[in-house]
C-alpha cells in the first residue's frame, strides 16, 4: 500500500499581501495613480488569481486582460515588481523576495505601448509592425495548388525556427526593450524574432523584400544588445540569436552597402584581421563617413583630445604581440569559411 498520501489534509499557508496597482482611466484621470489592495493570499496563488480576487471581492473597476490563465495565450503581460511577465504564471509568494517595500507587490502595465486603462495597453502598434515587416510566409506554392502536396522540410530547418515559433506575442520583450523606449518606431524584438523565423523558412519567397525592410532605419541594426528581451522572455526564447541571425544574413546577402550598422560591424572584422586590435578613433567615420563625424562628433573629439582620451590623428594603435602568427590563423580561418559556404551552396 502506498502511504505518502496519509490522511492529513493539504496544509494551506496564508498571509496578507498588499498589491499596489497602477490605475489610470483616461476618461476621468488627469494622471495615473496607485491603489493599494491588501488581501489574504495562500501559497500557490498566482498574481493573476490575486487580481481576479481583487476584482471580484474588493474593487470591480480594476481593469486588466486575462484569457487562458495558463501561460499560453499571452494576454496578461504586465510588470510585476518592475519586470514584465505573465501574471498568470507568476507566483505571488515568489515575488515577495523581490518587493522593494516588504509585503507590497507593485503591479503596473507593460511599457513602450500606449496605455488604454489601468493594466491594459494598446497592442495595435505591435500588430502594425508585424504587417510592416511582412511577418508571414508568402508561399512558393501557388494558391491553386495548395493542399495537394506537402513540402519536405528537414529536421535541421525545423530546428532553426522551432524556438522562435514558441513566441506568444505577450509583448514582455517589447515592454523591456531599451531601443523601443528610446524610439517608438523601432521594429521591436518580437517582430525581429518573427521576421527571422520567416526568413529561415524555405517555403517563403519574400526573404529579400523582408530583409531589405529590416536593414532600414529603425530596423535590425538599431538593437543595442542589452539582452533584456531575451532575459524577460516568458518562453525563454533566445531572441538575440534571431537578431544576430538576421544581421549575419544581411551581411552575407547585402554586404555593407545598407547602413551604418553593417559598416560598423564589418569594421571590427577588418581591424582584428589587420592589427588584432580595434582602432576606435576611426570607427565613427568608418561607420558614418567623414562628414557625419565632423558634424556630430567634432566638439566632443576636441574635448577628448584635450583630455588625452583620444590621440590627435592619425591614430596609432600598437598591434597585438605575435600578430604575424595570428594574422596567418585568421586568414586560414577565412579559407575555412569560404569552403563552408561553397559546400553549403552545393
Amino acid at each position: 500500500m502506498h502511504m505518502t498520501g496519509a490522511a492529513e489534509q493539504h496544509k494551506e499557508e496564508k498571509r496578507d499581501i498588499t498589491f499596489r496597482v497602477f490605475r489610470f482611466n483616461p476618461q476621468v484621470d488627469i494622471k495615473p495613480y496607485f491603489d493599494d489592495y491588501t488581501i489574504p493570499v495562500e501559497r500557490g496563488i498566482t498574481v493573476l488569481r490575486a487580481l481576479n480576487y481583487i476584482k471580484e471581492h474588493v474593487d470591480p473597476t480594476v481593469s486588466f486582460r486575462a484569457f487562458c490563465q495558463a501561460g499560453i495565450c499571452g494576454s496578461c503581460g504586465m510588470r510585476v515588481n518592475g519586470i514584465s511577465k505573465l501574471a498568470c504564471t507568476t507566483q505571488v509568494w515568489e515575488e515577495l523576495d523581490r518587493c522593494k517595500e516588504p509585503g507590497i507587490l507593485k503591479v503596473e502595465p507593460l511599457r513602450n505601448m500606449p496605455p488604454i486603462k489601468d493594466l491594459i495597453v494598446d497592442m495595435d502598434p505591435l500588430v502594425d509592425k508585424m504587417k510592416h515587416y511582412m511577418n508571414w510566409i508568402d508561399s512558393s506554392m501557388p494558391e491553386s495548388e495548395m493542399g495537394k502536396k506537402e513540402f519536405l522540410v528537414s529536421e535541421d530547418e525545423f530546428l532553426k525556427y522551432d524556438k522562435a515559433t514558441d513566441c506568444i506575442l505577450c509583448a514582455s520583450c517589447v515592454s523591456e526593450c531599451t531601443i523601443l523606449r528610446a524610439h517608438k518606431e523601432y521594429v521591436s524584438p518580437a517582430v525581429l524574432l518573427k521576421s527571422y523565423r520567416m526568413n529561415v523558412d524555405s517555403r517563403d519567397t519574400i526573404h529579400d523584400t523582408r530583409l531589405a525592410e529590416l536593414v532600414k532605419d529603425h530596423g535590425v541594426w538599431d538593437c543595442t544588445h542589452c539582452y533584456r528581451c531575451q532575459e524577460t522572455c516568458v518562453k525563454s526564447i533566445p531572441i538575440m540569436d534571431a537578431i544576430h541571425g538576421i544581421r549575419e544574413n544581411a551581411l552575407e546577402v547585402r554586404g555593407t552597402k545598407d547602413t551604418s550598422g553593417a559598416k560598423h560591424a564589418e569594421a571590427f572584422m577588418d581591424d582584428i584581421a589587420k592589427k588584432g586590435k580595434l582602432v576606435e578613433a576611426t570607427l565613427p567615420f568608418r561607420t558614418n563617413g567623414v562628414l557625419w563625424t565632423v558634424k556630430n562628433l567634432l566638439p566632443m573629439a576636441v574635448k577628448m583630445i584635450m583630455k588625452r582620451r583620444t590621440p590627435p590623428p592619425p591614430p596609432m594603435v600598437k598591434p597585438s604581440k605575435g600578430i604575424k602568427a595570428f594574422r596567418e590563423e585568421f586568414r586560414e580561418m577565412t579559407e575555412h569559411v569560404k569552403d563552408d559556404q561553397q559546400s553549403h551552396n552545393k
Partner: protein
Amino acid sequence: MKPFDIVIVGGGGAGLYAAMEAMKTNPSLNIAVLSKVYPNRSHTSAAQGGANAALANKAKDDTVEMHIFDTIKGSDYLADQDAVDILCSEAPKIIRELDNIGTPWSRLDDNTIAQRPFGGAGRPRCCYCADKTGHTILQTLYEQCLKKGVFFFNEYFSLSLSVNNSRMRGLLAMNMKTGKIEAFPAKTVIFATGGYAKMYWNRSSNAAGNTGDGQAIAYRAGIPLKDMEFVQFHPTGLRKSGLLVTEGARGEGGYLVNKDGERFMARYAPEKMELGPRDLVSRSIETEILQDRGFDSPAGKYIHLDLTHLGAELIKSRLPQIREMSMNFEGVDPIEEPIPVRPTAHYSMGGIDTDNYGRTVMDGVYAAGECACVSVHGANRLGGNSLLDILVFGRIAGHTAAEEAGKFEPGVISPEEIKAKDEELRSFMQSSGHYERYGALREELGQTLALNVGIYREASKISRGMDELSLLKERFKKIRVFDSSDIFNTNLMQVLELQNMLDLAETVAAGALAREESRGSHTRNDFPTRDDEKWHKHTIATLDNGTVKLGQKPVTMGRYELQERTY
C-alpha cells in the same frame, strides 16, 4: 458603417480559416473578423496534441476510412456519418494546406509531416508541432489573414444578432476600447466563438472567455442548438484552476491516491489501473470524491496525483512541463509533494446546429468549430479531432458564406436598436435594485453544474440543478456592474459573459435531464446503459418564450451500423 458581405464572430482557428477561405473564394468581398480578444490569444492556442489526418506518413497502411470509423465509434455512434466523412476526407488536404502556408509541423526522418499515436485512433495519424500545435496553427492563420488584409475588429464584444421577421440584418457589438455599441450590417454572419465548457468555471480547463457567446447569441435569436448535454471531462485537472495535467503523468507511472493513501483505481480498473480510458478514470475519481475519500480544501475536494516515487531525475527529464504547471498554478513541486487534481470540463460537443456546409436554419447565419455542432463528435470527441473540426468546417463555412453572400441583401440596423441595447447594458450599472455580485453568481453557477450536471448525472440532481439555475437567472436580473466607465469595461464584459453561460447552462441541464440513457460523455446513474431505440437521436434546444424547448433530430447513418463501444 458600410455593410459587410461577411462578418465572422471569433478569431480562433475556425474564424480565421473561414476568413482566409472566404477571401480566397471571392477576393472582392468585404469581410470583417470580430474578436473579443486579439485573434492570436484565442483558445485554439491551448490545443497541444495535434490534428488527425490519414496522411499515412507514419503508418503507411492508414486510410481515411479507418479515421472515419475511429471517429464514429469514438462518438458512441451519435456523430452524423456523412459529416464525419467530410471531416476525415478533407483532413489530409487541410493539413497539407497548413503546411503550404507555413505551419511549422514537426517532421519525420523522411522530412514529411510527423504523426503520432493518440487515444482512440487505430493508427498514428495525429499531426503535431511539438506540444504547441494549436498555438502554431493559430499563429499561421493569423499571419495569413494579416497578409490578405482581413479587416480585424479586435476587442469587440458581440452582443446580438439583429433580426427582423427571421431575416438576419447584421450584428451588434461593443467596442471595448470605447464602450460604444457599433452596428455591423451584414449579408452573412459566421459564428466561430469556441466552446462553452467554461460554464463549469473552476472545474474547467478552458480559457476564461470560453463562455459560449456565439451559441448564446444565436440561441436568443431563435436558432436551435444541438446536443448541448454532451460535455467532455478530463480526469486530471489542477484543483485551483482546472488546468489540465496531461495523461503523460500517469503514462510515466503516476499514482492516483485518495485521502486514505489508497491507489483507488484498483477498485475500478484492476488491470489497467491509472491508465484506464479517460471517461472511466474521470468517473472513478469523481466517485472517490463523492464517497468522501477525497481531500478537502477551500478550493473544493480533490485527490492526489502522486509522482514523488518517480524521483527527481525522471520528473525533470520526462515531465518538465507538468512540473512547471504544478509549481506555477498550485505552488506544488511534484518532486516533493503529490499534485492536487480532480476531473475538469474541457470540451463541449454540443453547439449551434448546422448542416454539413455550416448553415444554420436562419438564412445568412453560419457557424463552425467548437461553437457549432455538425455533428462530427457525437457524444464524445476523439483526441486530435477538435483542431481538425475547426479547420475543416471553418474553411467550409467561409467558403459557403462567400458563395452565398450574393444571395442576401445587406440589412439596415436602426439607431433605435443600438440605443435600446445601450440602455439594456446601462441598466446593469444602476444602483437601485441592483446588488448581486458577478463573482458570487458565477461561482454558484460553476458549482451547481459540477455537482448536478457534471460527470455523474441523475434525474433528481439535474432537476435540483435546474431549479438552482432558475434562481440564478432571477438573481442575475439584479446583478450590478460596478464599473461605470466606457473604456475597457471588463466588469461589464464579465457580466455579459455570465449571462451567456446562464442561458446555455439551461440547455445543457435540460438536455441532460431528457436524455434517459448513458452515452459517451453523458453518464446517467439512473439509466446506466446506451438506449439506441429511444435515444439514438440528436437533442435540439430552442428558446421558446424564455424557456428551453427540446426537440429531436435523427442521426445520419451510413456505412457503419450501431455497435457496442468497447476498447
